[in-house]
């Protein structure tokens, strides 16, 4: 379970205040809002990438972030993140980028092929990541996050570059992952197609 009090995040000297949220196990919270409303900053605050001026963020069993203090191994064991822009090591292949994520988290996944197949990029696994289209990169970014079985998944605009079909595939994969691991998912998005799977919607 992920819970946060009202928090004030310190973004390059200016502060942004966010409402409190609670995402029970196995639920998905959709964070909506205009561009510049701070959706990415909130997700990054939860990930411990943006320092807090006040408030706390807690993940059950993994401690809590309070001000600048982020518990050890927070991003390694407590959560995984799908960044807004698909970021990869351009020198590596699709598969190697997945392995890089495994190496970062000290895990060995058994479901890599299954996830890549579900997302329709299994045939690209030996391909250099810079040869992929934006949509393929976005799917790879999701695959990289979903290979780990951490209690919280943070997804920043995960469907921005996806068509209808791939958005549905990703939604199904989120649901499947949630039922398998019981994780809490926090998604920031403008995409109304995600409203149907959200257990809660928070508008910033």
């Amino acid at each position, binding site marked *: 379970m992920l819970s946060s009090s009202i928090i004030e995040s310190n973004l390059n000297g200016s502060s942004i205040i966010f409402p409190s949220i609670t995402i029970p196990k196995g639920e998905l919270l959709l964070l909506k809002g205009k561009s510049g409303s701070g959706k990415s900053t909130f997700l990054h605050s939860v990930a411990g*990438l943006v320092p807090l001026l006040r408030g706390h963020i807690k993940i059950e069993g993994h401690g809590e972030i309070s001000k600048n203090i982020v518990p050890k191994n927070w991003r390694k064991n407590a959560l995984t993140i799908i960044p807004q822009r698909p970021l990869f*090591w351009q020198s590596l292949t699709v598969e190697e980028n997945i392995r890089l994520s495994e190496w970062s988290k000290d895990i060995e996944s058994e479901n890599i092929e299954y996830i890549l197949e579900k997302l329709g990029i299994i045939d690209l696994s030996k391909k250099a990541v810079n040869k992929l289209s934006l949509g393929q990169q976005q799917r790879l970014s999701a695959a990289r996050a979903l290979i780990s079985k951490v209690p919280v998944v943070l997804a920043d605009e995960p469907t921005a570059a996806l068509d209808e079909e791939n958005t549905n595939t990703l939604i199904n994969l989120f649901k499947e992952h949630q039922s398998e691991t019981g994780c809490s998912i926090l998604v920031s998005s403008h995409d109304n197609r995600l409203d149907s799977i959200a257990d809660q919607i928070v508008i910033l």
Partner: protein
Amino acid sequence: MNSLYFSWKAIWKRRSSTIFISLIWATGLLGFASIQRLNNGVSNALQLQLENTDLLLSAKGSPTRSILANVFHLNEPDGNILRSEVDELIRNYNLQNVRRIAYGDNYNGFRILGCDSATWNNINYIEIKGNLPQKSNDVIIGRNVAQKTGLKIGERFHGTHGLMEHDHNHETTFYTVSGIIYSNAPSWNRLIMGSMNSVWRAHGYSDSNYTAVLARIDNPLDKLLIPKKIQEESSIMAVSPAFEVNNVLNWMHQSSKIFSAISFLFLITAALIMFFLLQSHVKERLGDYALLRALGASWWKIAKIVLWQNIILGSFAILLTYAGLAFIWFGQYTSITLDEIFQKEVYWDLSLDIKWMFACIVLSILTSIGPWIWLQRIPLHRALVDS
């Protein structure tokens, strides 16, 4: 897959800058390594040539010229010394391993040296093809003579009077090549060596004297006293080649220190360039490292990637240095002068390189410290949003 693998992939992606950085390193290292080899090669060659030679007796003249002519065979001797006078001196003093030599004619500019049996025994050779002279007109030739003149075992030739290449021929006196030697004391490789009698016979025994006598003195005090006494008591010049050569070696060591200092500056410059290139490399890859941090990699894991990258660069520099050394080594076959300076046993003695290899790896580690500090300050949020 581990940090080494990911480092290698990152380096491979930037091949041109990798080669550039490694080349700068290798230039400094090659300077170090080749000067060290030059120093050791020359010292080794001189020491081998000076083995068992604490005393040189020759005609009065310049001591340096006499050493160059009679020990290193690089110059013309000042003249001959009377056999009777020398033999008396040898009887009077406690000298060991006495070697008598007599300069004869030349063949294509290479000297023919008359040697006694003690001289034969004193030649340091690594390899001999054929045999040492068995008959009175047999000669053995050095490797460089064989290479330059094309003389082969069993071939006959006649000498030319004097030391110049085109002086008049002694067509009645033929020499036969009985063997070819390759010595690590370079002057032997440039000589044609026969018996003392063959040299005297070429001149009709008209000048059957010695050009020089070389000897060993075991007693350290005698090494100082005997040359002085001989100088005072006879018309023969007596010098201690080791003393003179040590002065040359000391001068050489001083010069090589200057070259080493220049190479060291190269190395420091290379390290600084590497440091700044790595800084910009880390800045360039800020998004990559921020991603790893966002994925949960510890700072130490990322630091290991940077460290491996630097160690790989340092190792490349070491490999390139050896490639440079191999290039010099094979290049020397086109130049006899280099061949005589860079000696096999010294040149490929890799234990000499441990110090600079160690220094190279330490520098690789040290140059990682800057990027490590930089990495700790990565603004992760900005890097993830802006990359």
